[in-house]
């Protein structure tokens, strides 16, 4: 074996190791997010939630996983077999690949690419395929309706999400995620761009099909939506993908508006805590708000959901893009022009 090939192999091994270092904690995080969801909603509804399996119910996610694993995988007779099997895999893979560009600390990132935020946006817009393929391949009316709802909803809210991202980019002048975080050293974007923060957060709720926008799953009308026909591990993959997407969207909110791995103030006791810990704490906070929303809001009606996306968020975020650009130009604060001339 020549030296060149050896270096390639070592590089490959190092990369695989990095991937595992991110994916394994992420999957554990997903497992405990499901537990946290049930506990938090339980407390908000004045009941206990799962507290029997293990101390404080800490082993509940593993019990659930074992239960799902031991069940039978069912392929419906009328289903399009290949698409039916690929769909949950696609959902799960897409929920994981986005993490390649997420910066956990100043230098802690697998791929620090120039178009990081576009990559995230692209991957999150692909998530709709897993759902629409599952709904179509199941050959069931409930699943198909759920998939159509979901696809329309995700495409609609992506538009306003894109505009919110443009607003942030105007203030940063770079598509690189580390640059976006670095630009928030003085003040987190959540403060000057507060309305956009709210629009973005609500759009992420719609994008991840979470309450109050969980119409694709609307159990009272569609049984469970696009994954009605799935069972066992394929169902678990959808579930994992959905929760990993929630964590991803929280990470995106944190990066764009809550200063990523930066401490809230650059003062003594706060800035000795390492960046990744701040990052994870902020993600946990956003996730808590996700659960809080689920426990306290009723489900939207579908036409109202579409109205909110197209007639409220889209014009509003468009106006904010123009306002922000106008403000930055008139006060000569546009960062993108700094490196130009």
């Amino acid at each position, binding site marked *: 074996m020549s030296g060149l090939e050896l270096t390639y192999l070592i590089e490959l091994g190092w990369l695989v190791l990095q991937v595992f270092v991110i994916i394994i904690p992420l999957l554990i995080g997903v497992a405990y997010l499901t537990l946290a969801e049930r506990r938090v909603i339980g407390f908000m509804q004045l009941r206990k939630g799962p507290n029997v399996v293990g101390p404080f119910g800490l082993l509940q996610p593993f019990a659930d996983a074992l239960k799902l694993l031991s069940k039978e995988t069912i392929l419906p007779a009328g289903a399009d077999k290949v698409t039916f099997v690929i769909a949950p895999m696609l959902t799960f893979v897409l929920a994981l690949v986005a993490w390649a560009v997420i910066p956990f600390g100043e230098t802690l990132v697998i791929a620090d690419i120039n*178009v990081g935020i576009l990559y995230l*946006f692209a991957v999150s817009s692909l998530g709709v395929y897993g759902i629409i393929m599952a709904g*179509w391949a199941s050959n069931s009316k409930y699943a198909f309706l759920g998939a159509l709802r979901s696809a329309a909803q995700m*495409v609609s809210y992506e538009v306003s999400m894109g505009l919110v991202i443009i607003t942030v980019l105007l203030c940063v002048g770079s598509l690189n995620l580390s640059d976006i975080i670095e630009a928030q050293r003085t003040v987190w974007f959540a403060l000057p761009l507060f309305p956009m923060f709210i629009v973005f957060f609500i759009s992420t709720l719609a994008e991840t099909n979470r309450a109050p926008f969980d119409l694709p799953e609307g159990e009272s009308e569609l049984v469970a939506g696009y994954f009605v026909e799935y069972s066992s591990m394929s169902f678990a993959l959808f579930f994992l993908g959905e929760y990993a997407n929630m964590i991803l969207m929280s990470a995106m909110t944190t990066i764009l508006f809550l200063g990523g791995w930066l401490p809230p103030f650059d003062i003594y006791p706060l800035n000795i805590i390492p960046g990744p810990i701040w990052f994870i704490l902020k993600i946990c906070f956003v996730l808590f708000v996700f659960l809080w929303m689920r426990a306290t809001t009723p489900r939207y009606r579908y*036409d109202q959901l579409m109205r909110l996306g197209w007639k409220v968020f889209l014009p509003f975020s468009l106006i904010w893009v123009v306002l922000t650009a106008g403000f930055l130009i008139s006060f000569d604060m546009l960062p993108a022009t700094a490196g130009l001339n």
Partner: protein
Amino acid sequence: MIETLFFYLFASITCLAGLMVISSRNPVHSVLFLILAFFNAAGLFVLLGAEFLAMLLVVVYVGAVAVLFLFVVMMLDINFVELREGFQRYMPLGLGVGGVLLAEILFVFFNSADMPETVVMVTEVSNTRVLGRILYTDYIYLFQLAGLILLVAMIGAIALTLRKRENVRRQSIASQTERTRADSIEVVSVPSNTGVKRS
């Protein structure tokens, strides 16, 4: 070495997916293969160093346009037998378009010696920034024109499909939120055995 490997991987998947688009029996599978082709084309863009174009291809074509394709194709009530019948009729047209495209590519391929060398930017500026600089300064009018054409197309599509239907009760959000307790609820005490008369 690795890049060449990836080039052949992306290129062969793109070609295979393209073949499957026109040969698969189920139109939904065709669209799914089309998406795969788009995706691999984006991979080729990344290998060229045009990461911005690659991401744009994924966001616009895969993330938005193809979803709508898929939507339409899934909703259509398609008769597969009928679809195969048209194959013979459209074959010459398809072959003609394919032939023209092939001729163009061959022309470029064999005349590539006369073509101006690709200008390689030796600056540290990312290609997003370079694209933006050229698009919004040198070609600003063309850019605006393209935007205008899209706007007109959008308005046209809306005007064609929007219809006012009779007998449909639409929700008026403004009048709903303006409702107060006073004009929607009235408390009446009902005397027993007589009830309340309303005009």
